[in-house]
């Protein structure tokens, strides 16, 4: 009888040698006459253990990691295929505290199944949401999503059901469903891991959205920096057509939905929904003024649902389990689960999906185990490159939309990047402006010119005469206010977030005394 062995095809696992481990295992199996059934799964999200090898045993899947190609022979000698103990063995995967403490809804299948096996997908609860939706009227589907409290996972946190209702009620005969998979924020990788680990969940969510709002066509816009995700998703779409989950007669229910995968071309701004729509139309990715909102005049001027990968991939679970069950998770107005991505200088980085309400300390120290370098934490950036840097004494904050906003921070797409005490926060502030200058679409002046001026002023503060420092800080404060109030979209509007947080919490790195930094903030 063959033994099933799981080795991820996730690009993060491959970036540290998963393919080499596969090769070594297959060679050893051949030499030893072992009967192995190899499954390339997604990643379980415990990225510090990658490449993670799992072996199917009578007790469940047993985890070994991180495994290098050179370890394979010794692990086989030690009895890995029987789940034997070994210094690299972590026991049954599902019982690992890091996973057992999570509540995986959106990520329930990622790392568990073969991402491109329709049989695996259905066996693990796939299509239950679509079947439930097709048993309801479209308006009931919209109501269920609204009642679940699901909010957009792209960063803005807008209620998904309200957006769908607007599109559903628009009278245009041509409507679109677009998935924004242009996950450009540093510190975020959940969209990528879902696309590589459970692409059918996204497809199912988009079919449900199309049914709910009356759309017959959809696009997924994936960034070009994710070639593996693009390849996996394209194959998943082909398979979904063959299975009649897409196409002219979805699930034999006489409803039609076509889905096309488009690839970005290296522009961060195309993660902004209106810039993404222009890019899909074959134009420069320039931000549009709102109104009109995309729900009414979106792609090619038609009513368009634009949702993030995680929002759409969560929809099937919401409908399968019922709006009430999803709503019961979470706190306040932050309902359901949030997929945190723990990144940067952290000992145990990866995907942490839990109900809203976790504290930053619990995430960074509890799950993360502190810094990878073993040095003290100095700063944590929450919510991507447009998010604030929080100092170590703010780790008590709870990670929900409202509590973070009250402290001048934001959850964004759920990325959390940890820095140790060697970080130069003056350089981090400068980088925020440099990044904005590099990636601004150029449409509005506060962002296009402000970011360039921001770099210059921060350089003047860091390297100029100390006598002029306070005057330059005043200019920087003024510039931040102008960018916040005057920019057309979140790129220019939120770039001041990290800069202001450095002024407020880490003024000493800009050559300011803690007292003056405090009064300026």
């Amino acid at each position, binding site marked *: 009888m063959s033994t099933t062995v799981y080795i991820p095809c996730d690009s993060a696992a491959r970036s540290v040698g998963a393919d080499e481990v596969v090769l070594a295992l297959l060679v050893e199996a051949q030499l030893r006459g072992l009967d192995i059934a190899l499954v390339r799964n997604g990643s379980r999200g415990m990225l510090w253990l990658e490449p993670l090898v799992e072996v199917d045993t009578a007790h469940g899947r047993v985890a070994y990691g991180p495994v290098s190609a050179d370890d394979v022979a010794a692990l086989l000698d030690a009895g890995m295929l029987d789940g034997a103990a070994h210094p690299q063995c972590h026991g049954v995967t599902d019982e690992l505290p890091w996973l057992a403490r999570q509540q995986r809804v959106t990520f329930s299948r990622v790392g568990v199944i073969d991402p491109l096996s329709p049989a695996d997908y259905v066996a693990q609860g796939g299509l239950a949401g679509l079947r439930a939706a097709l048993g309801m009227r479209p308006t009931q589907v919209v109501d269920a999503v609204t009642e679940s409290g699901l909010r957009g996972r792209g960063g803005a946190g807008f209620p998904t059901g309200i957006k769908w209702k607007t599109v559903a009620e628009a009278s245009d005969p041509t409507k679109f469903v677009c998935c924004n998979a242009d996950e450009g924020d*540093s510190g*975020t990788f959940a969209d990528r891991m879902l696309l590589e680990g459970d692409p059918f969940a996204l497809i199912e969510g988009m079919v449900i959205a199309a049914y709910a709002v009356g759309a017959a066509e959809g696009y997924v816009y994936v960034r070009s*920096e994710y070639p593996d995700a693009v390849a996996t998703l394209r194959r998943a779409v082909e398979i979904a057509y063959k299975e009649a989950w897409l196409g002219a007669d979805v699930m034999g229910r006489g409803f039609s939905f076509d889905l096309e995968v488009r690839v970005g071309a290296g522009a961060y701004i195309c993660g902004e929904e209106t810039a993404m729509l222009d890019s899909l139309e074959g134009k420069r990715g320039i931000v549009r003024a709102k109104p009109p909102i995309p729900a009414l005049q979106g792609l090619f001027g038609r009513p368009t649902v634009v949702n993030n990968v995680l929002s759409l991939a969560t929809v099937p679970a919401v409908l399968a389990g019922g709006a009430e069950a999803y709503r019961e998770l979470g706190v306040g107005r932050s309902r359901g689960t949030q997929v945190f991505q723990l*990144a940067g200088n952290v000992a145990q980085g990866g995907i942490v999906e839990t109900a809203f309400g976790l504290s930053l300390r619990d995430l960074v120290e509890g799950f993360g185990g502190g810094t990878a370098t073993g040095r003290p934490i100095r700063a944590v*950036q929450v919510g991507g490159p447009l998010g604030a840097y929080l100092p170590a004494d703010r780790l008590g904050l709870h990670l929900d939309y409202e509590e973070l906003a009250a402290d001048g921070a934001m959850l964004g797409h759920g990325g959390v*990047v940890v820095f140790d005490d060697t970080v130069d926060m003056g350089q981090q502030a400068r980088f925020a402006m440099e990044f904005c200058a590099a990636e601004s679409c150029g449409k509005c002046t506060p962002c296009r010119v402000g970011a360039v001026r921001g770099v210059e002023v921060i350089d003047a503060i860091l390297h100029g005469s100390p006598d002029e420092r306070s005057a330059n800080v005043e200019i920087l404060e003024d510039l931040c206010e102008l960018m916040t109030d005057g920019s057309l979209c979140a790129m220019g509007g939120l770039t001041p977030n990290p800069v202001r947080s450095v002024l407020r919490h880490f003024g000493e790195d800009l050559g300011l005394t803690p007292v003056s930094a405090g009064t300026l903030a």
Partner: protein
Amino acid sequence: MSVQEWSADAAAEIVRAHSGPRGALLPVLQALQEHFGHLGAEATRLVAKELNLSRADVHGVVTFYSDFRTAPPGRTVVAVCRGEACQSRGSRELERHAQHSLGVGFGETTPDGSVTLDQVFCLGNCALSPAVQIDGRLVGRVDADLFDRLVADAAAL
């Protein structure tokens, strides 16, 4: 697939093969760049004619997106991630090392045409940083030694 010499006939065929769907300019340009390695002035002219767009429109799109190249890249293309998660694990040092060891800045190609060095803002490998992408392959936990080895290995292929 290896990069091909410019051919107007082959290019026109590629444009027609990818110009079916609405808003096809990006897929058309991507297919042309994959085939020819870059998008020269002749490509811009041909795309404009075939898709009935102005050359200014096509030029505007080509120059807006950082993926599109108007000059041929080196035989190996290596992109160093400059995102914050990579910075927290030493990508600033890696950036300096890459520029110093190759003797070029970001967006430049070594004089012998062997390596193009690019910058990228996030490769989605933020828990295994610093990350680089070399000829489309993602590599995690890259230090100066590994960087040099990756470039040498790519050159030896």
